[in-house]
């Protein structure tokens, strides 16, 4: 067979670089020549192996973002200056107000979730036949009872001379976190005090003053890495008075 005339063209054939006429002629030759056909097969296989092996590295999303930023933050050269002058601030305001709106809605939702969860706990405890698991008016009995049941300790106030009475305590959970639930009484009203470890993400945005949520008054604050909530159907003054006692407890 006159293979020599084809030998130099096998790569180009495999790479699809031959003219149609040439490729046709070489194709006919391959049907007759086992040596050239096997050579072409081997080249195709090598080509495929390199193709598969060569697709090896993937860039990080980080690099892509970085580059995207580099090339898209440049000013658009074809944009009119007037358009920019008007549209950019307008857009910024739009985006900003949307973002702020979203943020506020988010925060409000989160706060409401925390408050309604606490209100549920408070109501559930009051409705329960056994309101508390440790029944005692003595803070020196209640405080040690929590030891080993919750992962922190806290101080309870001396109530002598105040209108408040301690009824007892129980272990409770807020967002899967264990905490202490104490129930105080003031003029026939029960007020709940919740103490959790302050994890920040759930509670940092809560307002510091007393707020009214679902007909309850709630006050919260952070102290020594703990987050306190005082919640009850009493007036703001009572909630604040009990909060003050707790804040000053030694």
């Amino acid at each position, binding site marked *: 067979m006159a293979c*020599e005339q084809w*030998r*130099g063209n*096998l*790569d*180009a054939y495999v*790479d699809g*670089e031959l003219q149609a006429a040439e490729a046709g002629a070489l194709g006919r030759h391959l049907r007759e020549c086992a*040596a050239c056909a*096997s*050579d072409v*097969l*081997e*080249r195709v*296989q*090598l*080509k*495929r*192996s*390199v*193709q*598969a*092996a*060569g*697709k*090896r*590295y*993937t*860039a*990080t999303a980080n*690099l*892509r973002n*970085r*580059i*995207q930023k*580099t*090339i*898209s933050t*440049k*000013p*658009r*050269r*074809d944009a009119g200056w007037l358009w920019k002058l008007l549209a950019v601030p307008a857009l910024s305001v739009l985006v900003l107000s949307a973002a702020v709106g979203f943020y506020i809605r988010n925060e409000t939702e989160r706060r409401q979730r925390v408050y309604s969860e606490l209100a549920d706990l408070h109501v559930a405890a009051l409705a329960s036949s056994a309101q508390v698991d440790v029944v005692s008016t003595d803070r020196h009995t209640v405080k040690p009872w929590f030891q080993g049941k919750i992962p922190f300790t806290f101080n309870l106030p001396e109530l002598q001379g105040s209108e408040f009475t301690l009824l007892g305590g129980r272990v409770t959970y807020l967002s899967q976190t264990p905490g202490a639930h104490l129930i105080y009484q003031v003029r026939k009203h029960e007020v709940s005090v919740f103490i959790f470890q302050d994890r920040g993400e759930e509670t940092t945005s809560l307002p510091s003053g007393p707020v009214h949520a679902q007909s309850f008054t709630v006050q919260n604050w952070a102290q020594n890495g703990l987050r306190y909530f005082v919640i009850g159907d009493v007036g703001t003054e009572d909630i604040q008075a009990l909060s003050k006692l707790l804040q000053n407890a030694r």
Partner: protein
Amino acid sequence: MKVQEDNPSVARFEELAMPLFDQLYNFARWLTQDTAEAEDLVQETYTKALRGFSSFQTGTNFRAWMYRILRNSFLSSRTGLKTTIALDGENDDRVLPAETTTPESVLIEQVDRELVQQALTELPVPFREILLLCEVEEMSYQEISETLVIPIGTVMSRLSRARKRLRDLLQKKSDGGRYGV
């Protein structure tokens, strides 16, 4: 929006250049053999290309233009300067005659991916890059010629030599490896 032919906009650049990102990175990583260097190289390529985009001739091959910028940046980098780009006997544009094929050489197809990757790594840069452009990027000879700024005849001879070298390397690895004894 219609982009003016003589004033391609930045938006147009982004539209053309971002789809090439993954391929360019892969190519850069093969050239540099180092992740951090490859990242810098791709970053540099995009920065340079954006800056020079006004000089890009619309109607010419954008992909080849981007690869050329990447490759030139590589060659002027610290690692790139250490690589030899000149090849012996490059000037004769003669295509090497193929060796007589033995049925055993068909086994090359079955050598695993890793072996091929290892062999590609061992190839000199001019061979490695032309194989990647041809097989992985599936560039035509014309595109390769524009990317590497060499005549088409040289594309063909270099490709032929690169494949021969790769085959030899794989054969050696296969013989000394699991196909040995």
